[in-house]
């Protein structure tokens, strides 16, 4: 008996069917052949003839193989049956579309990988920046009805003081008297020395008035808030702890209320514990203390003594900021005359501004963040355009398939839903990868210092971000699908069956669309490139600004002298004298000094100082100037040059007559002819007590006080420390060795003099400069990074479209070559196409770059909106990248073999 099974097994071997299915088929067919063979024999055929006849049953077995392959494959890939769709429910349709989309994407791994990488990068970058924008600009502050919280600050623009704190007088005059506010409070950030002698540390504190917590709508969860009685110096021995401090130092003991803690060498009684995660704006305060004052601080004459106090208020429901502003303006006007120098204040342009608390807090960083978000959105736009182009190319290649489907009854709706499913699938998976990139990106930005931004501590990768990402990816999928679906639908059936095949010429509309997308990409990438150029130029120019001091080899640190132990001038002078002397004797130290406020410290209060006999011109305001107390070799330590006269030194601390030095900006302002030495200054515009006047003994170089980008020459006055006291001090040391290595020594010396005092904020001046440029440096770096990715995407896009054009026109190229065209002519044609697109892209890009530069003016430093050299640079870079992307396909066009091209199909 012949072995039919082995015959059949041989036939089926190539198909690689599922084993049990294969066994079943073999058995069934063998059975059939067996029966046929036996029947032949029974009809009288010889075994050989019967065998021959039976084998004939398998004739056309290639048909069997082909059919089986088709049918059995369908087991894991359901047929796409359009005509029956109407009967299926929409979920099944969706599922089928998604499966089909997944299959087609899987079959083109190159395209899918490029698309997913593009999407992941673009979505990831957007999410990373959005996480910051969300935390800083969008999320409401963590207080109930936070949109009703406002801040009120004083401004004296004509005196050069754009922003000053509120005064105690402001507080006492305004609370309960402004109808627009349901609550009004004041607060002041500070530090305090806490802990036991020898193991003290400095902690951030917040001094607040009793209504502070009621204003925010969130107060102590254990204990109580401050009372009115606790607002004076003699009775303010109470403290409210944050949850973190309570857990760390009291192990979350609920009986802590009433216990004493050591603050600035004195005792404070704990009266309340704040809820977990309580944080006022960007403050990292661990203790809340009463913002106490004396009745003498609250009189009308003190109305314009700012004291770094912030004022916050809660608007009554339904009341607007404008209404509150009108009431504050009205009250200021009514009270104006009760201030002794009412005229001077009016001339300084005094006004109290009411602004949303969050808006005001993040106002400085807002333009930078918006710029970064715009930058990444551009990137996303380029990525999306790229993707649309790649999808369009694919769609063009599949026009025939689509037309056949349409002719078989696929509805227009189905064509659209199929495209949608595929693109949403793509963007969704891209979005998931993007989330992973964002998680890493947020960590990276934190390393770059994003958490130091206002409200930066809120930056987090959380469910909200993930939700936004996926919703965004979904939306993006729909947007990307639109042009593809439109393209597919617009193609008329008959038309589609004839054109856009490899043998025909390509459809003009499709081609034009692809080309315009390339132009758009080039233009957008150009905008990013030029933006990155402007930002780096701006950064370069900021870095080139001379700060007025020599930053290298200088270490600085902060101290504060608690009032309790340093209430007398003798005690204060004793401390700073000993400190500067002992530090100055350390090996490697060339100069050591102390100042009440160091440049770039972010504290930049100004005082109205006037030369003796100075009478402002009509309409001219009294000016605010920086005012410092210094001791030791401060000027030498920081490297500020002497221009005329002499510097201050420790002997000035005990001199009875008052002396001071001024900087050249101050001297030039009042004595343009250069006769500042010997002149006298009053610390108050009143110029009453002759003994209060101080004599200028020296003129020094001007220093950038608030920021390197400070453009107004405000002028500064330096007094000996005994004449201008502040409990906060900075010690400044110039060394010949590495300045950082001196940190521990500095701490030891301070502890030796006073075991209670810690030194903190130890940084070199170089580090202070770098930190002050954090936002500029990070944004230039990020935009440059975005521009790099944009270039890469544009190169991929240009290369993809031109390669496709070459592939499409292979037949045409073949014919032309066969008819005698030179390969170089063909290559030149594609190169010319690329160059034309590039030129158009650059023209549009320059327009876009001009607009972007104009918008960026707020954060650029001394850089015009259109900077010629930057533009030329951007043109150069984008041209090289685009040319490389064009050259490869153009070369490929010259390599087309006429015979193969014509034989194709």
């Amino acid at each position, binding site marked *: 008996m012949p072995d039919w099974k082995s015959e059949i097994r041989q036939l089926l071997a190539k198909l690689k069917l599922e084993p049990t299915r294969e066994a079943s088929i073999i058995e*069934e067919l063998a059975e059939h052949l067996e029966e046929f063979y036996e029947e032949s024999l029974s009809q009288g055929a010889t075994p050989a003839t019967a065998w021959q006849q039976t084998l004939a049953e398998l004739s*056309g077995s290639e048909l069997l193989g082909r*059919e089986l392959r088709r049918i059995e494959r369908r087991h894991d890939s359901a047929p796409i049956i359009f005509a029956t769709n109407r009967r299926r429910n929409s979920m099944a349709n969706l599922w089928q579309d998604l499966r089909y989309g997944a299959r087609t994407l899987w079959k083109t791994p190159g395209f899918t990988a490029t698309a997913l990488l593009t999407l992941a990068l673009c979505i990831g970058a957007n999410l990373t920046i959005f996480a910051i924008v969300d935390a800083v600009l969008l999320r409401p502050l963590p207080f109930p009805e936070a949109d009703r919280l406002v801040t009120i600050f004083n401004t004296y623009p004509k005196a050069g003081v754009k922003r000053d704190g509120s005064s105690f007088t402001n507080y006492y005059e305004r609370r309960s008297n402004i109808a627009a506010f349901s609550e009004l409070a004041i607060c002041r950030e500070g530090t305090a020395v806490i802990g036991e002698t020898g193991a003290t540390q400095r902690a951030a504190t917040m001094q607040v008035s009793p209504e502070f917590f009621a204003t925010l709508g969130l107060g102590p969860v254990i204990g109580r808030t401050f009372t009115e009685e606790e607002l004076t110096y003699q009775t303010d021995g109470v403290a409210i702890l944050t949850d973190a401090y309570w857990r760390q130092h009291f192990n979350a003991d609920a009986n802590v209320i009433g216990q004493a803690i050591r603050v600035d060498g004195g005792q404070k009684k704990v009266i309340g514990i704040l809820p977990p995660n309580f944080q006022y704006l960007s403050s990292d305060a661990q203790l809340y203390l009463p913002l106490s004052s004396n009745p003498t601080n609250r009189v009308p004459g003190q109305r314009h003594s700012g004291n770094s106090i912030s004022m916050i208020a809660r608007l009554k429901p339904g009341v607007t900021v404008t209404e509150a502003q009108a009431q504050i303006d009205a009250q200021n006007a009514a009270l104006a005359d009760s201030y002794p120098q009412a005229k001077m204040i009016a001339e300084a342009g005094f006004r109290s501004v009411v602004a949303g608390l969050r808006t005001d807090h993040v106002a400085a960083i807002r333009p930078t963040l918006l710029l970064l978000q715009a930058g990444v959105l551009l990137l996303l736009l380029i990525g999306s355009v790229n993707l649309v182009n790649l999808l369009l190319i694919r769609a063009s290649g599949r026009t025939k398939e689509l037309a056949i489907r349409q002719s078989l009854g696929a509805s227009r709706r189905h064509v659209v839903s199929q495209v949608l499913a595929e693109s949403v699938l793509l963007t969704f998976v891209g979005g998931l990868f993007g989330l992973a990139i964002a998680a890493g990106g947020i960590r990276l930005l934190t390393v770059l210092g994003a958490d130091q931004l206002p409200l930066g501590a809120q930056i987090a990768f959380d469910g909200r971000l993930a939700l936004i990402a996926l919703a965004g990816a979904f939306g993006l999928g729909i947007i990307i699908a639109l042009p593809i679906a439109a393209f597919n639908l617009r193609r008329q059936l008959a038309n589609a069956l004839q054109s856009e095949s490899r043998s025909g010429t390509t459809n003009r509309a499709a081609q034009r669309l692809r080309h315009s997308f390339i132009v758009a990409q080039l233009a957008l990438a150009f905008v990013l490139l030029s933006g990155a150029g402007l930002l780096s130029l701006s950064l370069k120019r900021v870095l080139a600004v001379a700060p007025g001091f020599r930053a290298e080899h200088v270490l600085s640190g902060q101290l504060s002298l608690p009032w309790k132990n340093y209430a007398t001038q003798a005690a204060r002078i004793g401390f700073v004298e000993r400190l500067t002397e002992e530090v100055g004797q350390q090996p490697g130290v060339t100069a050591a000094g102390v100042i009440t406020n160091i440049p770039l410290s972010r504290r930049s209060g100004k005082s109205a100082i006037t030369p003796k006999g100075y009478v402002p011109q009509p309409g001219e305001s009294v000016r605010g100037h920086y005012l410092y107390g210094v001791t030791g070799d401060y000027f030498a330590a920081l490297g500020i040059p002497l221009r005329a006269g002499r510097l201050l030194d420790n002997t000035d601390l005990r001199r009875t007559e008052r002396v001071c030095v001024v900087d050249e900006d101050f001297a030039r302002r009042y004595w343009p002819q250069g006769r500042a030495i010997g002149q006298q200054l009053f610390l108050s515009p009143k110029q009453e007590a002759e003994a209060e006047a101080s004599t200028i003994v020296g003129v020094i170089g001007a220093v950038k006080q608030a920021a390197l980008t400070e453009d107004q020459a405000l002028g500064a006055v330096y007094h000996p420390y005994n004449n201008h006291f502040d409990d906060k001090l900075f010690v400044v040391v110039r060394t010949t060795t590495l300045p950082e290595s001196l940190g521990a020594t500095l701490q030891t010396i301070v502890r030796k003099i006073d075991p209670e005092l810690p030194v903190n904020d130890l940084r070199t001046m170089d580090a202070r400069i770098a930190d002050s440029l954090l936002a500029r440096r990070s944004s230039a770096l990020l935009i440059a990074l975005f521009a790099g990715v944009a270039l890469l995407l544009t190169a991929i896009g240009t290369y993809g479209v031109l390669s496709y054009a070459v592939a499409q026109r292979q037949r045409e190229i073949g014919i032309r070559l066969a008819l005698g065209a030179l390969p170089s002519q063909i290559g030149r044609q594609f190169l010319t196409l690329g160059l034309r697109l590039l030129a158009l892209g650059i023209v549009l890009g320059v327009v876009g770059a001009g607009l972007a530069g104009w918008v960026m003016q707020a954060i650029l430093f001394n850089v015009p909106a259109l900077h010629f050299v930057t533009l030329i640079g951007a043109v150069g870079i984008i041209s090289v990248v685009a040319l490389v992307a064009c050259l490869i396909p153009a070369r490929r066009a010259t390599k087309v073999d006429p015979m193969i091209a014509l034989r194709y199909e």
Partner: protein
Amino acid sequence: MLDRELKKGSAELLILSLVETRARHGYEISKMIEARSGGMLKFNVASLYPLLYRLEKRGWIIGHWIEKPGQKRRRCYKLTKEGKQMLKAQRTTWQSFVAAINQITGLENA
């Protein structure tokens, strides 16, 4: 032998009709087609089984291995509910088609 295309188009209808009343195995089906068509239509293994498998995949017929005492194990096919509907529809179409052809070719008046 009928034209190949016509045969292919009508083959499904033939098979569905043959398994309408009872389950049949492949050899039986091929024999019946040959016999009933008077030798006009012939299916061999290579042409019949792909058709059967395709109809089975579509869910119009279903095959089961059946073992009867004293007989060989065979795979028999019977019509499914969906197959019945399909057969009904195909019969109607076929009849209309034949009627139309007849009308055109004038057989009706012959």
